[in-house]
């Protein structure tokens, strides 16, 4: 985490939310507090893609699945996708 930066605005440090953990974090969320972009960790891999390579159809269900554990600001105002209030 200490050298991870937001691929868009290069902000660092990023916030980490852990949802599931075995030896490694298997599911989680990385958030850029500056631009409010969120990046999923799925299957242990942090997915730090720029907006144009993100897939709404895969990312929104992830947000829904963990919404209870994600800060409200990200759930409703996060980029590049967020849920409707």
């Amino acid at each position: 985490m200490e050298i991870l930066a937001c691929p868009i605005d290069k902000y660092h440090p990023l916030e980490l939310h852990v949802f599931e953990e075995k030896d490694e974090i298997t599911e989680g969320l990385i958030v850029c507090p500056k631009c409010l972009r969120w990046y999923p960790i799925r299957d242990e891999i942090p997915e730090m893609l720029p907006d144009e390579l993100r897939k709404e159809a895969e990312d929104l269900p992830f947000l829904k699945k963990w919404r209870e554990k994600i800060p409200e600001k990200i759930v409703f105002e996060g980029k590049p996708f967020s849920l409707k209030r």
Partner: protein
Amino acid sequence: MVRKAYGEIAKAEKCGCGCSCDPSVSENAGYNPEELGSVPEGADLNLGCGNPVALATLKEGETVVDFGSGAGLDCFLAAKKVGEKGRVIGVDMTPEMLDKARENCRRSGYKNVEFRLGEIENLPVADNTADVVISNCVINLSPNKQRVFNEAFRVLKPGGRMIISDMVLLNELPEALKENVQAYIGCVSGAEMKTEYRRLIENAGFQRVEVIKEAHLPLELVLSDATAKAMAKKLKTSDYSARQLANSVASVTISAIKPKK
């Protein structure tokens, strides 16, 4: 498009980048069999043109970022070199490749390697954090090479080094070839002219830009390559265009330094 094609390669365990599927290709690329034996099986898909020089310079405790890490071969070799106090970060934009890399990582138990899904033009790495940037036959695939070199410069610590292997052109390729998407995946038609490639690196701010190794593609490899064959067929000139291709393309290893200021 590149992302999709490499995804297919990862799934099918096929090989890419114009190399044949012969296991000896990785040895030809300059890796010694002993080194290859030390990495998890499946990490080597023969996609690269070889970057053993970069690996040879790594020291214990260094932080390494691999641009376009694929199934992780160079990352695992680097991880061995930098040891427990060092770390290696592989970035690749192909989910299927990363699945493979992660699987290989799990099997081998490397603790100092991590993989991230990301784009080398938009690197998810903080400024001034890496001692070394390595990359093996990947940057030629990028439509925006200047941005890639800018990112490499940004993430390196002052005094850090970039040592990359790539395909470059010595002569301009025929238009018909440039348009051939398959050839793009085969590491060829996305390649930049050598002089321009060097200029882009210098533009990013790098100093002491040196070509430390240059090799022409062996003609036999080009002639046996599926991409070259398909291309030759398309151009209806049989072996001629493959010959032309072999004369136009070189694999280079380039080193450059981010000045300490």
